[in-house]
């Protein structure tokens, strides 16, 4: 146990918490847009898996992680549109149709992997970029400024998302459509249009989240995300539908995962108990949901399809 409380381990855990938070953060930011507009996309995990495979496969074929990231984003965008068709146009019950998308992604990504790749081959990962000057700060530099480009971009996306949601016309429309679609409709805002866009943003970010996950690990395998997409959905509640809150939640989960990983590597936790440790994120989520539900309110129109009265 004493091995755990050293400075080197602490710095390593913080750095790895930040890395592990990134896929959760990206997927949850995308889901935040969707939920603010009144659409709950439960298929995030499936889209992440498809994005992860697309990213992995593209890097395997081209050797370029950036092309992989692009492929993951494009696949995510396509599935964002599909999610919108199902939830917005066809007005399917969102709590269940998303499970269908999840199952499709889970099966399809595995199917494609077995058909096109077969045995796992490691791929090129993102290079680490040290930020000049800042990375030279003792301890701090190692924790925060020695990451790959997608990590920095994901965290820069947080203030951007806050700005878009709170300070732009589009963001105002998103909130209006999520709180009171009838009123927004009366004012000439296209409820369907806004929800399509938020689903496309959500899909793209979920695809990218999967891509970052697979390319950072340098591998793909069946069910690579291990339910990260569902945790991401819960993080949106955890963060009370605000990008900053979502980021804090993602960091907390990254931290919990990093600590569990480190304890396992140092064999502080016996292997038999690792399954019990793996329950922690889900249990923390449930407790957090209790806390959040008492203080914050979900967008009023969340999961309600918009039907214009004739």
């Amino acid at each position, binding site marked *: 146990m004493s091995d755990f409380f050293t400075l080197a381990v602490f710095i390593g855990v913080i750095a790895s918490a930040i890395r592990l938070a990134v896929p959760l953060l990206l997927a949850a930011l995308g889901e935040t847009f969707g939920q603010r507009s009144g659409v*709950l996309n439960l298929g995030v995990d499936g889209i992440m898996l498809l994005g992860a495979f697309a990213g992995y496969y593209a890097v395997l074929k081209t050797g370029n992680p950036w092309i992989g990231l692009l492929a993951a984003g494009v696949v995510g965008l396509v599935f964002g549109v599909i999610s919108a068709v199902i939830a917005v146009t066809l007005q399917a019950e969102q709590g269940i149709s998303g499970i269908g998308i999840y199952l*499709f992604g*889970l099966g399809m990504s595995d199917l494609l992997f077995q058909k096109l790749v077969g045995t796992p081959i490691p791929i090129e990962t993102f290079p680490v970029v040290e930020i000049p000057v800042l990375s030279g700060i003792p301890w701090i530099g190692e924790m925060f400024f020695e990451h790959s480009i997608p990590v920095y971009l994901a965290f820069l996306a947080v203030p951007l998302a806050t700005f878009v949601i709170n300070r732009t016309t589009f963001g105002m429309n998103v909130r209006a459509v999520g709180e009171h679609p009838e009123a927004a409709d009366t004012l000439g805002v296209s409820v369907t249009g806004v929800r399509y866009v938020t689903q496309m943003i959500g899909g793209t970010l979920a695809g990218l989240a999967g891509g970052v996950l697979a390319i950072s690990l340098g591998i793909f395998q069946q069910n690579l995300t291990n339910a990260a997409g569902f945790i991401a959905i819960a993080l949106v509640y955890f963060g009370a539908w605000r990008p900053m809150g979502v980021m804090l939640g993602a960091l907390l989960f990254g931290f919990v995962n990093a600590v569990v990983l480190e304890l396992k590597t140092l064999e502080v936790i016996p292997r*038999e108990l690792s399954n019990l440790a793996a329950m922690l994120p889900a249990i923390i989520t449930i407790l957090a*949901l209790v806390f959040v539900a008492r203080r914050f309110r979900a967008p009023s129109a969340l999961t309600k399809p918009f039907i214009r009265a004739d």
Partner: protein
Amino acid sequence: MTIDLTHRQRRFLAYSIPVIAVVAALLFGAIMLVLLGADPIEGYVEMFVGAFGSGDALVATILKATPLLLVGVGIVIAFRANVINIGAEGQMVLGGLFSTIAALYLPSMPAIFMIPLVMCAGLLGGAVWGFIPGILKAQYRVNEILSTIMLNIVAVQLMNYLLRGPLIDPREVELGTRIPQTARLPQAADLPIIYGDRLHIGPIIAVLAAIACYYLLWRTPLGYELRAVGLSEHSANYAGIKVKRTITLALTLSGALAGLAGAVLVFGSESHRMVTDGSTIGFTGSAGFNGIVAALFGGLHPLWTIPASFLFGGLIVGGQALQRAVQVPSALIIALNGLVVVFVVAADRYRSRLLSYDRSEEDRAGDPDEEALMGSARDAAPGLTHSFDQEDSS
């Protein structure tokens, strides 16, 4: 809705919509098969023959339909009370674990006592896993979709821990193979075989559960309360119904039935032990999700869920036959399964629209048709679409 259809035509169309949805999903699957380089026509012929083409196939279909029916009946109860239970996967796992533990640690006794006891343990396990999201929703307004998904994750890790550790077959440890499975469970707990060498009493248990659920929902005060809460929490509250208690109970009952499905899976399995491959789907075969689809397919009516489950059981058994015949990886079945879920759920809206139009017409004529009232998801529980909207109830 301006298309001029007669009452009968609309009714017929409404009931055929889910079937059309499944056909659409299969057509989509055919495209996937072509892309995978397989012959879709050969594939689907194999699928039909594999599901319904022989006595063995029918037995396999009935056995596959059993957990779907049990889960589906539980889903009917939850959805009728306007509660979305996505946690049947985890509730099945808990039912499997509780009943397995009961079978391993109960003193030996004749089957006549043993079987009811382990089944009750399964009910209990599922009930516990349904009670948690129920009480969280009722008391703390925690969204049940999220809490049940999280409990699915907890359940699978609990299963992996128990089957790799405390419950592992001692022989697996001795031999060093350490396959995560229990020892062969006591024979007294095996579900009795009623036909051939595979068909056990599980399907009878499931059909009885469906009948009991019908009786509960439409012939008891409790069922009335469940449906009243589902239609309008507000009005139910005014009528003096204890809404919070009813919501908790709906999820607990729903979970209990899924738990029973888990117990039937364990004691009706051919190896007569509980095994894990590390995922929930490995144990449940996605029955926790497919049961939802079967329930929607059956119009959220417990008795209609019986044929709906049979059909879905056939779809899954046939899918496996298809996959073997055209030699594509089994992941195809999970993907196809996802497509079916999406198509059926997306089509459900159109069915309820047709039926609600039907109903409003008849209401005007002063002749409300009871069956139309029990027709479809949103029809029965208009509040289903705003399950998050709990503020006004407190």
